[in-house]
C-alpha cells in the first residue's frame, strides 16, 4: 500500500481519506461508529450508505477480524434527508 493509495477518498460526502481512517484505527477505533466520531466519515448526507462497507474493509484488514464480526452502525431516522419545512403545520 503506497502513498498514492492512502490519499484515496473513502467517504465522499465528507471527503475523508483512507489515511485518516487508518489513523483513527491506530488511535483505537475498532468500529465504524468510532471511526465516524473521529473522522466524520459517515456523517455526511448519505449517512454512510456509500462508505460503511469500504471502511469495514479497512477495519477488517487492520484489526484482523472478518467483516461479519464488525457489526454495522445503527440506522437512525430519518432514513432519507427531509426538508424541515415538511414538519410545519397542524398537529
Amino acid at each position: 500500500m503506497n502513498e498514492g493509495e492512502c490519499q484515496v477518498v473513502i467517504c465522499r460526502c465528507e471527503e475523508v481519506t483512507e489515511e485518516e481512517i487508518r489513523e483513527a484505527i491506530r488511535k483505537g477505533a475498532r468500529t465504524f461508529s468510532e471511526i465516524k466520531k473521529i473522522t466524520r466519515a459517515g456523517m455526511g448526507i448519505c449517512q454512510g450508505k456509500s462508505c460503511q462497507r469500504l471502511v469495514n474493509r479497512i477495519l477488517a484488514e487492520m484489526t484482523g477480524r472478518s467483516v461479519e464480526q464488525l457489526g454495522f452502525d445503527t440506522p437512525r431516522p430519518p432514513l432519507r434527508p427531509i426538508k424541515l419545512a415538511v414538519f410545519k403545520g397542524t398537529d
Partner: protein
Amino acid sequence: MPELKTEVVVVGGGLIGSSIAYYLSERGIDVVLLEKSGLCLETSGACSGMCFIQSKKPGPTLRLALKGLEEYDILRKELSYPFEYRQTGGMILVENNSELELMESFVRSQKENGLDVKIISVKEAREKCPSLTENLVGTTYSPLDCQIDPLNLNVGLIEGVKKNGGTILLGVSAEKIGVKNGEIKSVETNEGTKIATDFVVNAAGVHAHEVGAMVDVNVPVMPKRGQVIVTEKLPELLPVPMLDVKYIMAKVRPSARKEAASKPEKLDVGLAIEQTVAGTILSGSTRELVGYDTGVTFQAMTAIARIMLRYLPVLENFAMIRAFSGLRPCTPDGYPIIGEASTVRRFVVAAGHEGDGVALAPITGKIVSEIVARGAPPFPIDEFSPKRFDGKQLS
C-alpha cells in the same frame, strides 16, 4: 490472572473520565483508564458541542463553570489536539413578557455569581444573528459562551494520556473493586485482569450508580434522554449558539424538574441549537426519563423541527439528515457529584454532570487531579460532595 499496577484507575472514558486521566497524567501520575464501550460511543459521543455558561444554575454550578472557562483557555493552548474551540458568545431567546420576567430575575442571579451577561433587544440580537425571527421580546447575551467539538476533545484528551505514558483500555470494564480497611486496593476487569491501584475514580456517567455499588457507595445517577436532530451542511446561519427559556426552566427550576419526573412520557422540549464548524446544525432537545433507551421518536423529531423553525424560519428549506439521542447522567438535585467518598478512602466520584458535562469537563479533571495529588480540591466543592447522598439510596 494478569496483573497491572498503577496509581489511579479511572472508570469511564467519556469527557469527564478522559479529562481526569489527562490531568493526572500531566502531573506524572500513573493512570489506567477503563472504557467499557469505545471511543465516543456513550454520552460524550451523543452530545452537542455547546459550552454554555449561561445555562448553569446560578450558584455553585455557575461559579464552577466560570472557573471551567479559565481551564478551557489553558487546555486549548496545551492540548496539541485541536477541538474547534470558539468563544462565540451565546443567547437565550425570550418569546414573551412572562418569560422576560423570569429571565430578568435569572440574569440578576447570574450576575451576582460573576457572569458577564445582559438582556439585549431583538434588534441587537438580529444584528448578531440575522436569521433570527422578529417574534421575540428580547434575548440574553453573554460573550463568554463557547462551542467545541466534544468528539475531538475526547479523543484529544485520550491521546494526551497516551502521550504522557498513561494506559487506555478500550472495551474493558470494571467488574470488582477491591477494598481493604476502608480503602481502595484494586480493580478487577471483565477480562480478568487485576489492577493494583491506590485510587479509583468513578467517572462512569449514566453507569456511575453501578460502579458505586461495587464499593457500597450511593451514587444516584440516572439517565435522562435528550434527542437531537442534525441538518445537512449549511452556509453560516448561526454565528451564535442559542437556547430558549423553556430549555432553561426545564433544567433549573425545581418545580419543573419535579413535574417532569412524574411524567416520564413528557418530552419537555426546549431549544438548544448550534452550528458546527463543519456547517451542520445540531438542534435539540428533549428531557425524557426512559431508562437506557437511546431510540429516537417521531414526536421528538417533529417537536424539535417545529421549535427550530419558530425561531429560525429560514431553516425550513434545509434538510434534516439524522436524529440521535444521548443519555444525560442526572442527579436528584441537579448538581454533579465530585469528591471523595466518606466510607471508602481514595474512591473519588466524578459523575452526574447532566447537561453540563462539556462545560465542566476540564475543571472536573483539574479538581480530581488535585484531590489525588494533594489530598484536597483546589477550592471548596462541598456542595458537590458525594456525602450528601449517603444513606439515601435510589429507589
